[in-house]
């Protein structure tokens, strides 16, 4: 049942125990998917991304350096690929033209041939980005462009089809008012659509916009929020603002045109690990260390829509970008029966309303077994005076 309905899940969440959870917000159900039986900490999911062919496949990057392929159509894991090289967990996963791009914490970016039948093969391309990488993100408009950044590792944009040197290398801001070097800690990167700009959020609670098209390599805009490291970021539909989350569970929407705070979202109690906005609807999915997946509405009105308790600590999430969020009917028999019953009972109850209260129990008993279900529902409505 869970496997059959997997394609209708709205949010996919990866946890610290290695389980991939699929959550259906319409039916309010969450299902666990594991590659092999027991959940293990060695398989903690550190990166998730959509595979080739729309949203039918998910690539799950685990802490033991394997990338597992999960099919949402069939609802099970299909294969895995071991991606050695470098140290640390995956910090970014992407797919382009039948190749898989992986980036690990020690800064090794590798491009692999994407045939999952083979256990492991040599990488097609290898880049060394610099140690301490926190995020590698692929440009959705130009899939061969990737951006990397991390702790004491400045933002760099690489062209996988071009040379070994980065296309854009960001420069650190000027020394602060004490003439001290400002440390760098890029935690999350996003590409702004319809331009070459990039936005990063840092562990020193700054949000910066870089423009490779402009002559300056320093950030074009800088805004700060809060006192705690910002851990996740996402663009809102409309792309004039970003929503950032920090280690205290505070979510804030920051306008990129002026660099000011537009508003905050309440609810999270733990460090924010994953954030994603729907491309067209004003919905934001957030997950964190407090083990709860929340879906907020960011506009008219701003508030919490859904909250789902998932028992493990959540590391990353993928929000389905499809437009219709209702399920397709699974069994055609049920919808036919339900309206018939409803019309019958509605007519009967309409005729009963005119009768006096004392006579109601007698009438109910004579109706028959079909009405017993209705009668049980009516009891809390206190037919007794």
């Amino acid at each position: 049942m869970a496997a059959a309905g997997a394609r209708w899940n709205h949010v996919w969440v990866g946890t610290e125990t290695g389980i991939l959870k699929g959550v259906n917000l319409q039916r309010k159900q969450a299902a666990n998917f594991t590659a092999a039986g027991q959940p293990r900490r060695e398989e903690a999911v550190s990166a998730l991304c959509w595979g080739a062919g729309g949203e039918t496949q998910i690539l799950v990057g685990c802490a033991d350096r394997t990338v597992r392929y999960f099919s949402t159509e069939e609802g099970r894991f299909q294969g895995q690929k071991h991606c050695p090289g470098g140290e640390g967990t995956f910090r970014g996963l992407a797919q382009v033209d039948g190749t898989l791009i992986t980036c690990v914490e020690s800064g090794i970016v590798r491009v692999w041939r994407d045939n999952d039948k083979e256990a492991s093969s040599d990488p097609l391309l290898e880049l060394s980005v610099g140690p301490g990488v926190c995020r590698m993100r692929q440009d959705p408009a130009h899939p061969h462009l990737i951006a990397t950044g991390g702790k004491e590792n400045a933002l760099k944009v690489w062209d996988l089809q071009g040379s070994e040197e980065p296309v854009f290398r960001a420069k650190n801001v000027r020394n602060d008012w004490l003439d001290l070097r400002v440390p760098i800690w890029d935690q999350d990167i996003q590409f702004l659509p319809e331009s070459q700009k990039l936005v990063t959020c840092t562990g020193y609670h700054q949000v910066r916009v870089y423009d490779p098209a402009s002559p300056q390599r320093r950030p074009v805009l800088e805004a700060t929020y809060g006192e705690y490291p910002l851990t996740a970021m996402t663009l809102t539909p409309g792309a004039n603002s970003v929503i950032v989350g920090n280690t205290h569970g505070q979510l804030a929407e920051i306008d990129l045109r002026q660099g000011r705070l537009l508003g905050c979202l309440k609810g999270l109690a733990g460090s924010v690990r994953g954030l994603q906005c729907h491309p067209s609807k004003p919905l934001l999915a957030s997950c964190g260390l407090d083990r709860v997946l929340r879906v907020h509405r960011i506009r008219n009105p701003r508030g919490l829509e859904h909250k789902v308790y998932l028992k493990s600590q959540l590391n990353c999430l993928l929000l389905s970008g499809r437009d219709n969020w209702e399920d397709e009917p699974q069994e055609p028999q049920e919808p036919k029966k339900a309206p018939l019953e409803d019309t019958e009972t509605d007519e009967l109850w309409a005729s009963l309303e005119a009768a006096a209260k004392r006579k109601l129990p007698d009438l109910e008993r004579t109706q028959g077994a079909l009405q017993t279900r209705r009668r049980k529902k009516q009891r809390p409505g206190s037919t007794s005076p």
Partner: protein
Amino acid sequence: MSSVRLRKEIKRRGKDPIGHIPEIILNNFTTRLGHSVGCMFAFLFPHNLQFIRREVATFHNQRDCIFFRLHRYIFKSEKKGGIQELGPRFTIKLRSLQKGTFDSKYGDYEWVHKLWEMDISRRKLHI
């Protein structure tokens, strides 16, 4: 921490608690967060099932406040037992739970107490 009573302030107290390992009682840690916190309190003390000395430490959770008491018990008869309060007593409230070691500036928080979000309703309890 609030309502601290040190050993010398407790009336009619027993003799000093010899440094033997007390038994632990954890009361009313029902939610998932409460269970984690309760386990952490239990692991503060070494795990020893010998029950040499009759000392017991109680952590009682009521409405998100945790009350700590230290007692010594004796069995007066088969059915009746008596307790004598020994050690300090205090009340503590959970402020935050961090993942990893203590790092208030850059650490990841698993749970943070937010005054204006969590304490609005008297009925919603977290631990």
